């Protein structure tokens, strides 16, 4: 038994550099997805909320267009989105396969659409009275968003972000099909293609640990921000 454990440890040490490299690739894809979620997902989600019916800033057409876009992206099976985006990525980035930055493009697209929905839902939870109060004080839309909506929704925004990031981890495991690499691709290559089951499980455990860390950090931050 102890011999087997020793053997396993030896193998893990042997594969460790490649595992770390894969984790680094996952990190790159997650980084771009998170950045896009914050920089684009939040504004798009806020726009969805502000243009929805019943709001002082209601705008039917704009709302319908953004809604349709978000729905189309989210209803795409992710693998097909990856494939469908190949020509576009090749045009903008020069190459579409074999590198985690090229693989980040579909991640960015799904990240924006997914987090925009979460942001919209978070904002929907804010009592109508708060919007009315901002309006009665003569707040501009900009002030309404920054000084009222984001303040009241902040812990819910963080929880949504955590859930989104965990989905990003899951999405990133698919990117092996276009040579994007990542820890998920690592697990598939060694477990499925080379029958090195122990290495595959090690990679899966790493992914689980990654998810647990995100969840823990997210909840902790959300709790700290929540004074309700």
């Amino acid at each position, binding site marked *: 038994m102890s011999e087997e454990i020793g053997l396993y440890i030896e193998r893990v040490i042997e594969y460790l550099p490649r595992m770390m490299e894969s984790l680094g690739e996952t990190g790159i894809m997650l980084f771009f997805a998170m950045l896009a979620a914050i920089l684009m997902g939040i504004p798009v989600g806020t726009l969805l909320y502000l243009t929805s019916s019943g709001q002082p800033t209601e705008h039917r057409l704009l709302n319908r267009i953004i809604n349709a876009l978000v729905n189309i992206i989210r209803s795409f099976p992710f693998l097909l989105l990856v494939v469908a985006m190949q020509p576009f990525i090749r045009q903008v980035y020069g190459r579409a396969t074999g590198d985690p930055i090229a693989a980040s493009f579909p991640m960015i697209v799904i990240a924006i659409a997914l987090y925009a929905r979460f942001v919209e839902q978070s904002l929907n939870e804010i*009592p109508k*009275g*708060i919007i*009315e*109060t901002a*309006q*009665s*004080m*003569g*707040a*501009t839309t900009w*002030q309404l968003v920054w*000084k*009222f909506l984001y*303040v*009241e929704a*902040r*812990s819910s925004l963080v929880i949504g972000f955590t859930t989104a990031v965990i989905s990003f981890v899951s999405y990133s495991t698919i990117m092996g099909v276009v040579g994007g690499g990542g820890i998920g691709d690592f697990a598939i290559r060694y477990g499925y293609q080379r029958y090195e089951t122990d290495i595959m499980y090690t990679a899966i455990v790493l992914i689980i640990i990654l998810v647990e860390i995100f969840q823990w950090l997210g909840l902790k931050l959300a709790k700290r*921000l*929540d*004074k*309700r």
Partner: protein
Amino acid sequence: MIEFDHITKTFKENSRSLTALSDISLSIHEGEAFGIIGESGAGKSTLLRLINALEKPTNGLVTVDGVAVSDLSKTDLRKMQKRIGMIFQQFNLLNNKTVEENVRLPLELHDFAASLTTEEVLRFVGLEDKKDSYPSQLSGGQKQRVGIARALITRPDILLCDEPTSALDQNTTEEIVEVLKKAHKEFQMTIVVVTHELPVIKELCQRAAIMELGEVRDVIDVKQSDERGNIKPYHERAIEVLSHE
């Protein structure tokens, strides 16, 4: 001076249209405390919310100091709203901000030439020791005091009160009415109070409009009661009400 000139307001809901206000004309004088009373659904809140353009009339004109509210550009409307404070039945405080941050919120939105300091206004409503508390740590009455402080800090010319005591018990109601009375005396703004509670109007207002089914039935002068400062503890009042025929 606030004037309603032949105001009609209808809400459209799935092809049905509902008349909330029908042909209302009314003036509220500068510096008076004016009550709007009626049963729920009478249209009193809608009438109040026309003053600061939270609602727009379907027909007719609302003017504040001679300026038609519905004709204002967005920028000018904001300038007008800046001069009008408002307090709400559900207080509408930001739960993630401290009492001090809540009270100072209007000052973050506009520049005010003659605003009060946080200390002054919190002392005025009796919450100087709650500066760093969050709303979730306060009672209903304390929350409404924060709401009042937030409205008063800008020294508004008009204070709109939308069912200010309807979420509070009777003793707290009287405390809040006292604070509003004190504010009226000290700052001499125009106060418009919407409520279904007669004692609130009786205690606070000089005149009142009685509303029914979207119409103003009467505008009357309120006779102030002599019975003052008669706040009894809750249990005494409960015995008084429940054990008498």
